């Protein structure tokens, strides 16, 4: 039984532009014909360039925005119609801004959330203790939210979003602006929450390391359309982003001739060749070794960045 189901969901915005006295209205489809479902316990990375429709989708899944077409069911209900009811079962983190109370110490915000969501006090204490420990919040509890650093605030926001044991958590760019260590710590925490509580997590990000570290599933969207839905490995192999072979020769030579590969760069005795993802490197190596003075070599897989860049370009 899927916890999130979208069927042919669209969302149009009217954009008014002015030039002089004339106003022109134009309809922009931020999300167009989106259909997918998410199973309980899945961690889905939702990626796409700026303006692809990621946040719009998240807002529709929380009930903040009403879709212009199609149907959405989250935890069995229509989000925009049963927004208040659904709110108890989902957690939301907007990376760009806090949902906590700016002037209140973190612990007061947490106390209010406990009452707002009617979390049994024992359960609340238990959760709070866990999150304080895992997210290292102990020294921050008495600090007003406005005085927290970005990374500290984000940890506070994430704890706040999870205190009421939501079944589903939406994280809209949770690692934006964080340093490497904070990012790693956050990912570790989210992985643990997902593993222990079977919380379904949907996260949008521009940081593909988030996807590598956390997501069992990736969805790529562009211009409101799904352009990929599957596993990370599937994403890599779906695209014929070329693999790279770097060979070190005994001498500086003109670009070498190999069947099935092309030299893209020469750097003294070092030459860089590319070859398609779906072919084996072995015959290439044999051919090079037979014809050229080969000293050393290395093969590199396409980076996820290059895969996605290619996906955007072909879409």
């Amino acid at each position, binding site marked *: 039984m899927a916890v999130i189901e979208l069927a042919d969901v669209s969302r149009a915005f009217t954009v008014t532009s002015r030039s002089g006295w004339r106003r022109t209205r134009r309809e922009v489809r931020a999300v167009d014909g989106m259909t997918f479902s998410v199973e309980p316990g899945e961690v889905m990375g939702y990626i796409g360039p700026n303006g692809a429709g990621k946040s719009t989708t998240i*807002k529709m899944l*929380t009930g903040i925005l*009403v879709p212009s077409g199609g149907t959405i069911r989250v935890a069995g209900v229509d989000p925009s119609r049963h927004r208040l*009811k659904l*709110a*108890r079962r989902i957690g939301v983190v907007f990376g760009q801004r*806090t*949902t906590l109370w700016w002037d209140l110490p973190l612990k007061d915000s947490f106390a209010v959330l406990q009452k*707002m969501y009617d979390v049994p006090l024992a359960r609340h204490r238990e959760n709070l203790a866990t999150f304080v420990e895992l997210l290292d919040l102990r020294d921050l509890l008495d600090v007003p939210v406005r005085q927290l650093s970005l990374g500290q605030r984000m940890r506070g926001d994430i704890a706040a979003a999870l205190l009421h044991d939501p079944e589903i958590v939406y994280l809209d760019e949770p690692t934006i602006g964080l340093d490497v260590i904070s990012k790693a710590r956050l990912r570790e925490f989210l992985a643990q929450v997902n593993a222990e509580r079977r919380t379904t997590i949907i996260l949008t990000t521009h940081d593909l390391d988030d996807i590598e570290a956390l997501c069992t599933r990736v969805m790529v969207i562009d211009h409101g359309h799904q352009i990929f839905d599957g596993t990370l490995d599937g994403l890599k192999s779906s695209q014929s982003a070329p693999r790279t072979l770097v060979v070190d020769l005994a001498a500086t030579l003109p670009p070498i001739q190999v069947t099935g590969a092309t030299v893209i760069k020469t750097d003294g005795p070092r030459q860089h060749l590319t070859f398609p993802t779906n072919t084996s490197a072995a015959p290439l190596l044999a051919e090079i070794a037979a014809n050229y003075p080969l000293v050393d070599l290395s093969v590199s897989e396409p980076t996820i960045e290059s895969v996605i860049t290619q996906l955007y370009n072909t879409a």
Partner: protein
Amino acid sequence: MIRAPAQYWLLIVMWIRSVLAYPASFVLMLVSSTLVNLTDFVAVLIMFSHITAFGGFSLGEMALLYATSSTALGMADLLTGSIERVGERIRTGAFDAYLIRPVPAFLQAAADGFALRRLGRPLQAGTVLVFALSKVDIDWTVARGIMLAVSLVTGTVIFAALFVLGASFQFVAIDSAELANSVTYGGQALTQFPLTVFGKEIVRAVTFVVPLAFVNYYPVLYVLGKPAPLGLPSWIGLLSPLVAAVMVALSSLAWRAGLRRYRSTGS
């Protein structure tokens, strides 16, 4: 719906506690706010050192008008005044945070940043009310007593409804906070005086268009046993609960429409 009062209370207690973390600062704010408001009434006192009646009202009667109007606006401002910042919240995107919580966005917007120091105005108004009641010679009946008490509530409700109407309009025109202020705060300045001094057009406007006259003017006329203007019956003040109910219905519709518009346009 049933839980709304408890939820509202939860939110304002949170803000009150955060303010009371600095008690000395709070007391100073409250005292200064009350004093500033009191000087507002001093203007009326000075006026009456030169005249004995204004628009048919004696000093005590004027004080009664002033106190009722000031209580109503002060209480409405205390309870729902924060809602005027809704346009700002929409612009910064903070409004989305209200919509992910299991509490109606209206309650969160009304309670957000609840400022207990706004109690200064109702406190000042209470002082003026005591002064007024000691000065005026009212022919007390049960109906008049009830009317006076009820008018403080209905007046608060009418002003609060106006705050909400103004805030609802900000869903359409984000920078319209000042427009709403001209009706609420401006309206309060108007209702401090016997409305007849402003001329018939104004009286009509505040009776039939923006029913500010029902905040305190008509109820006070009833309590004092004075005739109503425009040939209206002298018991017209008794209609104030009805007017308040209509205003609540209107503002609630407006808020819902605004929220629906927001949810279907995004920020």
